[in-house]
Structures are given as structure tokens and as C-alpha cells.
């Protein structure tokens, strides 16, 4: 199995690569983790990971600047049905539109806009930076064996915007930050995490292992 982590000049790619390599080792899986900026390599991969750090529009522009990458993602995810995991802004790009700084179109996989968080407690700081627990909206294979809820494991968040999913079915997990905030979405073979699995220690490694075994 070959897992392609898409390199389009955004984010902490080294951490993501290392976390996936560690998950492969610990789970005893036979998988090759490839950090790649080549559309061909993405189009033929068995699993796709799209990281992303920064502003929505900048990430979108960065991705568009890689020759053939958008088409490669569509081919491998939409037509071949390979499992996809978006992380942070990589997850937000799965939305219809991002409204950060300006309006930017996303992939349209998860209906809804990426909007600024507005906690109902004014003392809460934006960005949300730190460790928070998750509430599952519905069971999902990527959360199998992962304790969630108030007494569950923590995930690491760094974000000011979140994806307001229009369809309840697309929402897998929320976190509480002055009201529910979208933490994880999924639709078919496409999953996306607002938090950083590659920084979320126990929870993160378990989720990555589940993704590597996922058969949507």
C-alpha cells in the first residue's frame, strides 16, 4: 500500500510524514509513506492525505499552483474511491467555500462554508489553541477503539475557523468551544480532521492507524 501525503508548500509536512511512518510501524502494517508534489504519484496512490496550515485561500492557491494536482485528487478520490484524509485546512478545503479573508471555492465534498468561530463565551480566545475532547455525532470506523466524550482522549486544535456542515450526516465529531465546533467530517471515502492527528499523540496515532486500515 502506498500512502501519498500531498506536498504543496503548506504546513508541517515533516511531522505528518513522521507520524504516519510511526503509525505504520506500531500497527505492523505494510505501507509506504510518500511525501509528494507530483500529480501522477497522487493519482495512483492507495490512500491520500492532504495537510494544510495557513489561510484557506492561500492553501487553495498553493494547491492550484501544482500542475494537475486538483485533477489527480478528483481522479483518485472521486473515481477510484481511494480513502482520503484532510487535516486542518486540508479538511476545510473539502467544504463548499471558505470565507476566511475572502470567498474561495473548496472541493464541494462536504456541503457548507468554513466560517469564523464565534464562541458564546466572550472570554474564550480565538484561535482555539490547545487540547480538547471530542463528542462523536455518529460512530465512524476512524474512531474505532478511541475513547471520546468528556472523559476521553484529547485532540490538539489550532484554528480560528471551522466547517459548518450543512448535512448532519457529514458531521462525525464536534468539540466544545463556547458551543459545538466541527472537529471531524466524513462522506463516503473522504474524511477530514480539524484537529491535528499528527500532533495528538495517543488519539492521533490511533486515528492514523484506523485510517490506514479503513475500507470505506
Amino acid at each position, binding site marked *: 500500500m502506498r500512502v501519498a501525503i500531498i506536498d504543496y508548500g503548506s504546513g508541517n509536512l*515533516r*511531522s505528518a510524514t*513522521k507520524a504516519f511512518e510511526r503509525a505504520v510501524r506500531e500497527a505492523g502494517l505494510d505501507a509506504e509513506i510518500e511525501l509528494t508534489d507530483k500529480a501522477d504519484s497522487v493519482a495512483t496512490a492507495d490512500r491520500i492525505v492532504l495537510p494544510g*496550515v495557513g489561510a484557506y485561500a492561500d492553501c487553495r492557491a498553493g494547491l492550484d499552483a501544482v500542475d494537475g494536482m486538483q485533477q489527480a485528487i478528483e481522479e483518485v478520490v472521486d473515481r477510484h474511491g481511494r480513502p482520503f484524509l484532510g487535516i486542518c485546512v486540508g479538511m476545510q478545503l473539502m467544504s463548499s467555500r471558505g470565507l476566511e479573508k475572502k470567498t474561495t471555492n473548496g472541493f464541494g465534498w462536504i456541503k457548507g462554508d468554513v466560517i469564523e468561530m464565534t464562541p458564546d463565551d466572550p472570554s474564550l480566545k480565538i484561535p482555539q*489553541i*490547545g487540547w480538547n475532547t471530542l463528542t462523536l455525532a455518529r460512530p465512524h470506523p476512524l474512531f474505532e477503539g478511541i475513547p471520546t466524550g468528556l472523559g476521553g482522549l*484529547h485532540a490538539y486544535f*489550532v484554528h480560528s475557523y471551522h466547517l459548518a456542515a450543512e448535512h448532519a450526516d457529514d458531521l462525525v465529531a464536534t468539540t466544545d468551544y463556547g458551543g459545538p465546533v466541527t472537529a471531524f467530517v466524513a462522506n463516503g471515502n473522504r474524511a477530514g480532521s480539524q484537529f491535528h492527528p499528527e500532533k495528538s499523540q495517543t488519539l492521533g496515532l490511533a486515528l492514523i492507524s484506523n485510517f490506514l486500515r479503513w475500507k470505506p
Partner: protein
Amino acid sequence: MTLKARVIPCLDVKDGRVVKGVSFVDLIDAGDPVESAKAYDAAGADELCFLDITASSDNRDTIFDVVARTADHCFMPLTVGGGVRSIADIRKLLLAGADKVSINSAAVKNPDFVAEAADKFGNQCIVVSIDSKKVSKPGEEDRWEIFTHGGRQATGIDAVEFAEKMVARGAGELLLTSMDRDGQKSGYDIALTRTIADRVSVPVIASGGVGNLDHMVEGIRDGHATAVLAASIFHFGTYSVGEAKRYMAEHGIPMRLD
């Protein structure tokens, strides 16, 4: 409210080795930063901070190697600061494996650099590190001023106004160090921390002066910081990160204990 307060060990790194100064002088070499990072990762630190205090430009690149080797072994969020002066510096640190970059003197010298960095990399990865000292006399209203060059050089800039300006420019977080308290083990400057934390919309990390675990509780509870940074108390084994987090939890602060 389920977001937890963070405990952040900070390692001062010089020429690729860990040091810790008492009020920024009398440095004592205390080990390999990557080994320390691994130990803090295993101990449940919520984030890790490297402050590069390498003076010689010949050795400036040592920090990139330290960050890269740390990122290979640790899956905890990493903030790196010290000598960050250009967009290229930030990009190199992020590529090496840093999650956030802290900007100090360059922000004082050129506030627009913060705006440029936040535009390029997102507010969430730009931490502005503010070193300040109390300049008001006893009986006067509290006033703090920004100091640079390890606390030796006054700038005349009001710390609270500067903090607000940095947030307006796009800082996603403030690392607030009291140069009066740094290395003194007498506790954070709570008045300074609370004044700024209550004034800005972004998270504030309290720093400078931790001597015991009550100080960390006070930083969050009374200083209204969302994270507390400490160096020597962890570094020399006075307390473990786990002890600190359990103690804070016992004193009513929401902590991540998994």
C-alpha cells in the same frame, strides 16, 4: 468548556545544546535538546518551546537540525523562537518541523513583519514574544515597558499597547515574559499577565518566574493565561510535567491528563 490549560516546558538552545540562564546570564549547559524533548513528550507536556539563543551567525543553522531531529521523534506541538527575522527564517523552521514560530525583537523593530508573517503562514502559527519589565514606581499605576537584548535595552514602548498592536497585526498568540521575574522563582508577574490577557482576543502564555506549582495555578487562575511556560523547574527535575499537571487539576484547572 473543555479546552485544557497547557503546560509548556521551554528549552533555551545555544549552538544546538540546551542551556538555561538565570535572568539570561550564567548559562549552564544541560544537555541535548532532542533527548529533553523526547522526555517531555513522554511526560505529557502539552507543547514544547525552543528558544534559540545562539549568538554567532556561524552557528545559526544548528537550530534547524535540532528542530528536524525533534520533529522526527516527538508528536507534540513545537514552538520555536529566537533570532526569527525574515519570512525565509519562518519558512525554514516550519519546514524543519516547527508548528509555531515566535517573533521577538523583529516585531519590536518592525511591527509590519508580524502582519506579513501572519498573512503568509496564518495567524495561528505566529506567536509574538513580549519581554517586558515593570517601569512604574511604587504607588503609581502599573506600567510595563518592552525591553530587548535579553532585558538590557529599554525601548520606551508600553507593553500593553504593544500587545494590542501585535494582535491587530495578526499575532495568533502572545508569549509574555516578565524580565523582572525571569529566573527569580518568585512567580509570574500576575498583574502584567492579567492586564494583557484581559485586553487581547488571542491566547496568552505566561512566562518568567515559576518557582513552584502554585505559581502555575496562579498564572492560569489569576493571570488569565491559557498556558504556562516554565524552564528550570522541569529542567532540573524540581517537578515533573506530570506532577505539575496533576497539581493544577487538583486545584480546579481543566487539564489534559491522558
